[in-house]
């Protein structure tokens, strides 16, 4: 099944779908941050930056797949 990517058009300028997903993922991460702090996300991993990067990639992949 082919996934149809819709381009974003701002003032006549076409914006690549990947840019939209990257920005949406950033917004989701920022919103999720207080929840991550609350559950002690960084204390669950030996290398929290890599865990946060992985979470970012998972959300980015999900958004790309589902939207």
């Amino acid at each position, binding site marked *: 099944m082919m996934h149809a990517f819709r381009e974003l058009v701002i003032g006549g300028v076409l914006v690549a779908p990947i840019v939209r997903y990257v920005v949406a993922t950033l917004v989701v991460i920022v919103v999720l*941050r207080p929840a*991550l*702090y609350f559950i002690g*996300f*960084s*204390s669950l991993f030996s*290398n*929290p*930056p*890599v865990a*946060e*990067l992985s979470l970012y990639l998972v959300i980015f992949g999900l958004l790309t797949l589902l939207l």
Partner: protein
Amino acid sequence: MVWAGLPASSWAFAIRIWLAIVLALYVSFWLELEAPSTAALTIAILALPTRGQVIEKAVFRIIATVVGITASIAIVGFCTQSGSLLLGAFAAWIGLCVYVVGLLDGNRAYAAALSGYTVALIAVQQIDNPQHIFESSMARGAAITIGILAITLVSDLLAAPDHHGQLAVKLNGLHRRVADYAGRAVSGEIMPATIAAGLLREIVALRPDIASLAAESSTGPTRSAAARSAMVGLVAELFAARALAALTASSPVREQITSLFEGDRGSARAALGVPHPGDRGNDWSDLMAASASWLTGELLRRDREVHKSLDALASGDRPPQAWRAPLFHSHRIAAEAGIRAAVYFLLAAGLLAIAGWPAAEVSLSFVGIIIGLGATTPDLRSFTTLALVAAPVASLMAGVLEFLVLDGVTEFPLLAIGLAPFMVGAALLISMQNPVLSGLGRLNLVFILALLAPSNPQTYNPETFLFSVLFLFLATGLLFAVQILIPPVSNDHRRRWLLRSARHDLSRLPCHDKADFTPEECMFRDAGRVSLVVAAGDDSPQHRAAIGEAMANFDQAAALRVCDAELRRLADNSIRAQVGSAYRALRERDATSMLTSAHALHQAGRPSQDRATLAASAALVLASVAFDSPPPDVAVFSRERKP
């Protein structure tokens, strides 16, 4: 672990920077971006040792690029009919951005500078082809995004250190030094104003680093709040120590208070022998002793608060209180710097226009970049001098790299290997403690990449390279000459304006409007002004005198704010008259009346043991000391010993 005289952390940082540059170039070549060298230059700009600093600067770089691109399109759209009008608009925009740089610090100031020189990079370089501005903006935006992604990925995967550990070490060290200062000052040792001012400067200098903690991880915002509270608390603790030293300078209770700083605090308090603010007594010495006791309690409370904030920073928990850290800024100094920046740009543009050389806009854009980046440093002229020194070194390095090391190769692995010694070497210089070497390293990293301008395929054209080198020399030389013609704001002027603003702010206290900031936060803002005074000079007698006056203003303003805060807490109608006369004494800056009001409040508060009334009384005694001439052997608090 040390290798070749440099710690392992420096080597790890340098290798991360090289890998990030290689990754950014590889992805840019793969995506066939039009400006792959911008991706590599983004890494050079974001070459910072910790993750939080990198991420925060990257965010501001994106925001500033969008602002700069919008300004470029708007300026060219409005002023494209006339070349001189266009250059005037560019100069005005760069001046405005440099003005904003003067009002901000850290990466926010960098963002303002970048907004300015993005115009120089995009609009000035396309001054003869304004229809290409949008395309070059898109190319630049795409390359910057790739650069940011590359350095973020490399920092995460190669475990770039977190910043909070280093900040905790610095804050703990400053805490020890403030405690040591308190002990020595209270025991009667003469402490020159420069010591306290130097401590304030070191504390305030941590503000940008603490702000960048928020971007570090999910615990970043709480650690940032804890570090900020510790930083503001340290300033308040230093003030309390100076106030206590001045109050006890001629007091018989000094020895007992000194014992508090020498060990057993519990038994020392019991042995203090001074009455607490509720103890009975009916003479002036009782009032002074009660005030000293209150101030000792305040100092110990501040010390405990800083301890708790530092513990919260280490554990990632919320601090006991969340202070804000307002930044002091001088509109006058910022405006002077902005006007000068616009004039420098206009003069350089005028000289290049008179010369009539082809492609001189490249040189003008270098001028814009150096003005913008120099505005974020404490001394613009030193930065220009550094650029003047770095330009030939970087040109030599870039020439060796392009025509001796690479010499026509087209394979990417060879480019990556060839880049290694130059990038690693420059990054190692950046990691050094010496500010001159560190600045040279950063400029070399930027200039080498700008002159090499990696592209796919690489042209290896000696003529293009020589023109680029010529334009860089021309830009740095021209800016240096223009700054000799119109020098940046002198240190004398800076000091004068800063002291004038301190006097002006002091004259408005106590203010009856609703306070935006707590007394502690205002103390921190005033400490920012003291740090600017310290930075505006060397070891001259005039400079030391200015520091003494700045510290006196700091102490008096803080004492007035503490008094105001304590008096505001008094809601009892029966002592309204005493509160009114206390405010009158504070407005008149009359130390004797302050002491009389303090005595009246002390008498009013004693029967009911009202702590708020007695604290206000003690704060008034503190203010009276701040506005009274201290004994000749005390060089702390209100009027420092002038050299």
